[in-house]
Each structure stands twice: as C-alpha cells, then as structure tokens.
C-alpha cells in the first residue's frame, strides 16, 4: 500500500527540484536539458560511425592483417575524433546540468571546452596533413559519405565554435552573472572511480542502444517472419537509453528526500521492465533463430557472425545490471532508514 502511495507521488510537481527554481533558472534548465538531448542524439550517431570504422579495423587485426588495420584506422581517425568531439560536447553540457558550486562549474567548463577544442583542432590538422601525405586521395574521396573527410572538417569547425563560445561565456558573461541553476545529482566521493567507470559504460551502451534502436527500425527486415524478433530487438536496444533518460531527467530531477524514497520502487519497476525486455528477446530468438543474421544485422557493429548473440546479450544485460544495482542501493537505503 505504501508503495502505491509513493508511486502516485512519482509525478507530483513538488517532488522535483524544478519546483524550487525561479523563472530564469527554469528557462536555463530547460535549455540545458534540450541541448543535452540534442547532443546525446548527435553523439549516438557519431559513436555508431566510429564503432563501424573501428570494428572493421579490429576485424583486420583478428584476421591477421595488421597492415590493413593500421591503414584503415588511420583513415578513420576523423570518424573517431568526431565521436570524441560530440561526446565531449555532451560532457561540457553535463557540467551545466550538474554544477556543485560556481568555482567547480567554471573549472569543469574550461577543462571540457579546452578538450573539445583540442579534438576539433587535431581533426582539422589531421585531415590537412593526411591529404598532403596521401592518406586521402581527395578531400571528398568518399566513405562513409560522399563528402568524407571534408564533412569531418566542417563538423570540427562547429565544435571549435562551441568550445570558444563556452570559454567566452565563462570568461565574460558568467564573470558578472554566474550560472546559478542548482545541481542535479550529487558528486560522489566514495568509490568514485568505479562509479564513473560504470557510468561511462552505461553511457556508451545507451549511445549504442539509441542509434541501434533507431537504425533498426529502418534497416530491419520486418517481413519474412522476422517481425517479432525485430520488435523485441528494438525494445531491447532502446532500454539502455530509456534507463539513462529516466536516471538523468527523472531521478536526478527529484529532491534529495524523494530520491531516497523513490529509489526502491523505481528499481523494482526497472527490474520488471528489463526482465520483460530480456524475456521478449530470448523468446523471439527461440522462435526465429535465423533472424539475427537474415533480418539484417547492421546494428551489431560490435559483432561478427559468430558473436552476434553475445553482442545482443550485452545490450540486454545493461538495464538488468542498472536495475539490480539500483535495487541493492534502494534496499540499503531502506535498511538505513529503519
């Protein structure tokens, strides 16, 4: 009964930090949230691109052609740097989202902006030198797009502009009128390394899951009896990004006391949903064991023919792990409270 009452309060306005914000803070907060979503989407696709280039090179190494792998990795550096650029832009925005205090926020923004500028400038330099050194036969020699690697140069220029803007904002605008939106999410001190590693893994799985989930809607052969498997796989892929969205935009938007109260019921809901998604995936595979390869497996860049199943299992496992960790934490908090 108690759980039901809590569930009803899940969407109570007063449970969220936002209820304590003034008008300007709400506007800033909305803008940062929207930009976070936008850069998450951009990062998901650039990460997928980089993974595609990288995995092909890994395939060459596994097959014993290290020379081919090196040639291809060098050629794909703009793909990899583009992923770094967009993910770093995401981290830069994250600094606006979680700002424990103005000083720390300034430091984070400066650090992330400089990193972003370094990646973007490195890419610019690499393409120019690469063209002269013969890595590229032309600035538009093609693959993965007709304008590659020129398109990565234009991409770099956008991120250079973003980095410069962020630095100017900290140096000029925020000097007199600091960015003051309260932080969402505490900065951990205990086991920070492990926590950050897990979050990074989760972020990468979410980026992969988001792009794979969206791509698979378009590239999957839902005909020829593969529809059930297709739907089950799309659901499995979208689980990690959905869980990340719930974590960032729901759990971290809650006031501290509500976070403690809501963690356990949220974890239970998460566990049920992820078990359902996992079960759906395995049932659909059992009914259509040819599907992963015959319905199209472009969304499995991390897998070659033999390991396609393992790749999906990793994705399916991610929300389960998140839910179990949340469940353990929720139980721990409840025990503490009692």
């Amino acid at each position, binding site marked *: 009964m108690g759980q039901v009452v809590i569930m009803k309060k899940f969407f109570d306005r007063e449970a969220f930090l936002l209820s304590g914000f003034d008008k300007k803070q709400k506007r800033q907060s909305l803008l940062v949230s929207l930009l976070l979503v936008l850069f998450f989407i951009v990062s998901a696709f650039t990460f997928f*691109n980089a993974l*595609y*280039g990288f*995995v*092909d*090179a890994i*395939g*060459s190494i596994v*097959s*014993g*052609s290290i020379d*081919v792998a090196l040639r*291809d*990795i060098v*050629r*794909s550096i703009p*793909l990899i740097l583009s992923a770094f650029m967009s993910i770093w832009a995401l981290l830069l925005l994250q600094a606006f989202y979680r700002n424990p205090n103005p000083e720390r926020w300034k430091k984070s923004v400066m650090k992330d902006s400089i990193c972003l500028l370094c990646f973007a400038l490195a890419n610019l330099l690499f393409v120019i030198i690469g063209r002269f050194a013969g890595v*590229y*036969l*032309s600035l538009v*020699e*093609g*693959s*993965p*797009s*007709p304008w590659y690697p020129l398109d990565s140069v234009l991409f770099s220029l956008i991120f250079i502009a973003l980095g410069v803007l962020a630095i100017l904002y900290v140096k000029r605008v925020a000097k007199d009128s600091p960015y003051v939106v309260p932080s969402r999410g505490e900065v951990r001190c205990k086991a920070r390394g492990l926590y950050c590693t897990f979050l990074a893994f989760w972020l990468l799985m979410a980026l992969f899951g988001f792009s794979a989930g969206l*791509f698979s809607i*378009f*590239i*999957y*052969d839902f*005909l*020829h*009896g593969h*529809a*059930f498997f297709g*739907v089950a796989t799309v659901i499995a892929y979208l689980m990690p990004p959905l869980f990340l969205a719930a974590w960032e935009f729901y759990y971290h938007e809650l006031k501290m006391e509500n976070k403690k109260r809501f963690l356990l019921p949220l974890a239970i809901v998460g566990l049920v949903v992820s078990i359902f998604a996992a079960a759906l995936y*395995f*049932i659909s*595979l*059992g009914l259509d*064991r*040819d599907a*992963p*390869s*015959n*319905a*199209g*497996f*472009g969304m*499995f*860049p991390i897998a070659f*023919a*033999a*390991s*396609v*199943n*393992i790749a999906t*299992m990793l994705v399916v496992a991610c929300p389960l792990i998140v839910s179990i960790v949340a469940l353990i934490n929720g139980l721990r908090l409840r025990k503490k409270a009692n």
Partner: protein
Amino acid sequence: MKTKTWAVLLPLLATSLTSCGAVSNYADHLEDYVETMRFHEKFNILQLTDIHWSYDSSTLASRNYLDKLLQQVQKHISDTQGAGAKIDLIEITGDQFMLANAYHVETFLKFFEEKAVEYGFLYTAIWGNHDRHGLYNPNWLSDQFGKAEHCIFIDPEDNLYGRSNFVINLTEDGTSASTTKWQLANLDSGASFSETAISPFRDYDYIREDQVDWWLKEHARVGESVPTIAYYHIPQQDNLEAWNAIHNDGATYKHKFFKLEGFADNGNEAYASKFIEEGRNHNLKAAFMGHAHNVDWTVDYKGVVLGLGVKTGTELYFAHIDTKDTDPAMVEGLASVGINENFDLIGAALVTLQDENNFELEHLYYNERATSDFVAWVKW
C-alpha cells in the same frame, strides 16, 4: 469498450508480428528464378569476391583498383582469345559490403553499371554473410541489385531460404525457347544461425535442403545432362573433406593454388549441406565460392571442381605470399603456381566455357605497385 477494443487489437497485433506477408511456394514458380543469356564458345565468366566495402574503405582507391583489374582481364582475354573476345559475365560472389551504408551500395552499383557499358558485360551479385551487415534494409539492397540495368539478380517473395537463389541458363539464342547449353546456379549460402535461443555463438550457415531441392528442380527443367557451374559464398564441408583426404589419407585429387587458413564450414555434421553430393549426380561441373580471403585453393573432388575465388582488392584482410616462407601450405601453394617473387593474394578468377562441355579456369593475381604493377595469370 476497452475489452472489446483489445479483443480485436491483440489478435491483429499478433498476426502482424508473426505473419510473413504474401509469399509464394518456390516449387510452384520455378520460372521466376531464371534468367537467360546467349551461349557462345569461349564464354568468359569473371569471378570477383569479398570486395568488402566498409566505413573505413576508400571507395575511390578501391574503384581505381577494380578499374585497373578489369583492364588487365580484358587485355588478357583479347591477347589469348582474339580482339573480339570480352568478359561476358561477372559473378560477384558475396561480401561486397560489410559495415557499409546506402552510399557504398549506390557508389558500387554506379561503378559496375558504368563498367558494364564500357566493357559490354552483365554482372550478378550473390549475397555473402556480411552483405546483411550494413546500415540498410536487406530488402532495399535486393531492390537495388534488382533495379540496376546490367545486374542479373532475382529475389522473389518466396519460402526459399536466402536471397540470391537464381539460375542463369546459357541458351543457344539467349531466350528460354532454345536449348540450354550451360546452367549457372547462384545460391545464397546465408550468414549464420543459432543452434539454440541462448547460444552465445552462432554457426556459419550452409546451403539448406530446400535450396538443394530448388536447384535440382531448376536443373531438371533444362535437362539432367546440362552441365552446371555453381557460385555461392561460404565454402561447404566438401572442401575440408577434400583437403583432409589429400593431406591425411594420401588421396591424389588434382589440386592447386593456396590454402592458408581454414575453410568456413561449421564442422557440425548435422548441418552439412548435400548440395555438392547431389550435384555430383546431376552434372555439376564446378562450384566456386569466396569467404575465406586467405584461401584460393581449388580441387577436383570426385568429379566436381571446388574452387575458392581470389579475394578482390585490399579491404579487411588478405594474405602476403612470401617466397621464403617455410610453412608447408605456403610452400605447396607457391610450387603449384610457379611464381618466384613476393606478392599479395588478391585479384580475380576467370572461367572460360570453352564449348558445351568443358571449361578452363585461370587465377589472376593483380597487385598495384609504385613502379610497375604485379600481374600473374595461373592456369588450373
């Protein structure tokens, strides 16, 4: 109202998720899987395989290589068969793409369409395991092959396993009304399959029973005595059997070229294909495939020539042939081709149908080099 709505919606949803759409039974529409070409003596079929365009390929560099390779082949044909002779058909035997997107597919087809006009050939594309491994819908890829003007490709909405199962009948006058002299059977050897729902690994696919049955029926339509050459992607277990028979049991089958890595059959007898075994009784002269880039070994195994094509281009991986290498397989391969300098095992394979019953096979090793390109033709 809600209960009623669900009562209607749920069965509809279940049907839409499990239905296959309107599919035909392959055995009832055998004529839908047939293309014809006019046969003539010295009919040249060039096999390109495992081109592997991917995200980190330079399509420009690869097109340059393919362009020069086609020039070499045309020159060789003109030199050996006379000025009027040409490549008649190109069989692209799988893994054209891996980790690729629509740009790669469109660029690839544009290139082959241009070359088809320039050289006057037709071409076919057979699915390899990695052609399904890209950012496009497999049905879209089939449509692109099907729509290309000079590409022979058939993928009906049917219950036959795979996507590129069709035959090209080489007839007297190029129409199905005249006698078939040779049949070219193209088969989709699939990608992979799970033995169980929770298997962490997948096995390489094999030519399935319904595909064998389909080909036997297509072959029966043109006459049991018509000689056939099959093209598909993944080597079946017969290649390994032949290798073991020669190297373990001392069999004396004619064999040639290189085998520097394993074949790709899954090694499980429960999933062994009967295609070659059945073909032996139905005038199957040869089967050519790709998939294993470091292998271009060819063997005459109990009356059927089983040959891997030469990997085309430098994408993903290929073997460097070193004349100083002491590995027995390398030594054996080098002795069979009689080449005395280092080279890369990339190029193409050319089958020439000499007359109504005989064919010749040659392997071209073609490497781009800074000074002068390496070109070696080796006869089977």
